[in-house]
């Protein structure tokens, strides 16, 4: 084991060395801004980033240096760079990390007057909050919607009751086909769940008053609804790889990334995407990336200017599209909406009613270690939704030190 740790530490040392070498600016008087981001998903995306960079450099007479890192390694490498004092000026950050980085003062608050908050989707903007203050600008956003097989589901369900009825009809017509791939009690399922809870008018927490709310009725009803779907959607069918794309499940909950994959690998499947079914009000979850400025940066003004630039009306659509998400800037999103494929429209629509994750630094841990097992406990029938969630909420209160 010490070998593994040694390996990790060695990797850190190595990265620190590499970034130290890479950090030196070569150009003469023009200030250089270092910006960390994920590796482009496609050559086209890489070209878009390049064009944006050149545009900014020309307009401001500066240099921008991209450091592009594979998404899977990004957080580790970024943490290593910060630990070794070689953090970039600015960079991309996964939404739930923003409040963590803000809390330990790794990143700086957005200066007043940097943006017009009403120009952005509220859900996306809220993912930048830490203790009520903004610590980043939303770069792109994503959500999950209801994928449905048009052959099996002619009109998509809008409400939970319709969803249950549709799933039942499908499974009764052919017992080899599941109604819907019910999300699991794992980290991924726990990420999607709040979107449904919001659809019942609930929330997982109230950050301002430090209250855990997911043992209350909306959350319990949501989990009960997932449990109720299982008889018409047996795991034995839906756990098969690509159950939806293979036509074994009539519906599934997933994100825009699956639209491209299915079109590419299952060209015969006739499908569309609808917003998530809801109980009392349309709602959804949210994911995506924000842009932050690191406290060690000597170019903070320039860094915010660059983040303004890639979130602007003119550029955010290009940037978000290259990133694989949707614009966070409302005007930019209108451009995207005009050119979008039908299967993508529902996501963009739903993002208007998306709810940010709780801005709690330990949220990923709560999501993975407490909520996910509670969902699974109820879904596997080992506890009722109320029992599982009461226990989970109590654990969360202890972990976060929120006593009410």
């Amino acid at each position: 084991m010490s070998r593994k740790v040694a390996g990790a530490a060695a990797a850190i040392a190595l990265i620190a060395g590499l970034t130290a070498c890479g950090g030196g600016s070569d150009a003469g008087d023009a200030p250089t801004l270092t910006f960390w981001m994920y590796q482009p998903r496609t050559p086209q995306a890489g070209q878009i980033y390049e064009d944006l960079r050149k545009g900014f450099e020309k307009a401001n007479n500066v240099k921008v240096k991209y450091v592009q890192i594979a998404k899977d390694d990004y957080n580790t490498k970024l943490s290593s760079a910060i630990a070794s004092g070689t953090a970039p000026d600015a960079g991309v950050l996964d939404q739930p990390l923003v409040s963590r980085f803000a809390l330990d003062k790794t990143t700086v608050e957005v200066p007043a007057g940097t943006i017009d908050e009403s120009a952005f989707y509220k859900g996306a903007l809220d993912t930048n909050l830490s203790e009520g203050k903004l610590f980043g600008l939303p770069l792109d956003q994503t959500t999950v919607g209801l994928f449905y097989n048009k052959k099996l589901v002619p009109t998509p369900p809008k409400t939970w009751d319709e969803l249950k009825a549709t799933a039942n009809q499908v499974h009764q017509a052919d017992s080899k086909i599941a109604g819907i791939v019910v999300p699991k009690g794992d980290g991924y399922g726990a990420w999607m769940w709040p979107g449904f809870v919001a659809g019942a008018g609930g929330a997982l927490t109230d950050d301002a008053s430090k209250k855990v709310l997911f043992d209350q009725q909306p959350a319990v009803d949501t989990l009960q609804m997932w449990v109720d779907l299982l008889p018409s959607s047996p795991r034995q069918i839906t756990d098969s790889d690509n159950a939806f794309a293979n036509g074994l499940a009539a519906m599934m909950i997933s994100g825009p990334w699956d639209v491209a994959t299915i079109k590419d690998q299952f060209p015969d499947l006739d499908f569309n995407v609808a917003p998530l079914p809801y109980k009392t009000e349309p709602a959804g979850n949210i994911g995506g990336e924000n842009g932050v400025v690191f406290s060690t940066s000597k170019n903070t003004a320039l860094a915010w200017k660059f983040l303004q630039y890639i979130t602007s009306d003119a550029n955010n659509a290009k940037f978000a599209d290259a990133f694989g998400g949707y614009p966070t800037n409302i005007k930019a999103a209108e451009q995207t909406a005009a050119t979008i494929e039908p299967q993508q429209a529902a996501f963009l629509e739903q993002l208007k009613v998306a709810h940010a994750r709780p801005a709690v630094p330990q949220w990923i841990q709560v999501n993975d270690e407490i909520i996910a097992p509670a969902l699974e406990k109820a879904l596997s029938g080992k506890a009722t939704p109320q029992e599982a969630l009461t226990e989970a909420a109590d654990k969360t209160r202890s972990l976060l030190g929120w006593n009410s």
Partner: protein
Amino acid sequence: MANPVQADRPAATPDRPGRRPRPGFGRRDSIVGWLLIAPALVYFVAFLLYPAVAALYYSFTDWNLRSSPSWVGLANYTDLLFDDVKYPHFWKSVQVSLMYTVVAVPLTLVAALGQALLVNAIRKGSNLFRLLLFLPVVTAEAAVGAIWRWLYDPQYGLINVILGWFGVPPQNWLNNPDLVIPALAFIAAWQCGISMIIYLAGLKGIPLSLREAAIIDGAGPVQRFRKIIMPMLRPTTFYLLVTGVIAALQVFGLVYVIFSAANKSVTGGPEQAGLTYVLHLYLFAFRYDAMGAACAMSFILLVFIMIITALQFKFVKQEAA
């Protein structure tokens, strides 16, 4: 003399009285010697010793990789062992790794020995079979994960098809908490190529005369296996047991690949049934921002492995008989 190695060397005539003769190396030779081992030494210190010592230090701190570590004494260790609010799945991960070890190691040894016996027995084409049986070891972990996800698929999986011939109903291997460990252990056994090669070498090392003598004495194949092959392979088995247990307690890559590939989730499968100790450690190090606690976990595992290994050296027969 204290040093038994030097004791039986012919005593060189000392140049000066009272000074022990240096066997072999002069001073200049020793510089050359140091230079020769320098690359390995630098590697060892920079990439193994220093990080290990640093990790030990960090295990006594609260550290998120970003801000400077703060000293917390033994808190990480006591919290891991006793605080089930902070680390609700620590003991679960211990249990998963132990279960996995108990199932996977014997299964791997049996599979390896069986394969080695077969390869050893055939006269033609044993090279080909050795290669085929070794292939799973050199296959990239991501590919192994993808293949086995498909083999274990509840709808189309080949494993269920084969079991179906014997009337076994289809199982949901990777999603039924009770079946996750056996499913993973089976993959490990399939990847037993290295153990197979070592067993094969062991088999080749058994003197033919023993076999002939046994045949003359009228021992059948089963008796020969029990009374000659097994005892003669005991050092090999002991070596494979010790290294196999150490490797099994550290299993990580395969679990990570199997459960993250299709489920987009790294939390260790259904009901944490596949949350092995090192996967749990990884999550705290790189996902939950608790590098200090992760370092403490690694040292707990180190001590545990040392104890288990010492117990094996004490209680398992290791000499060939």
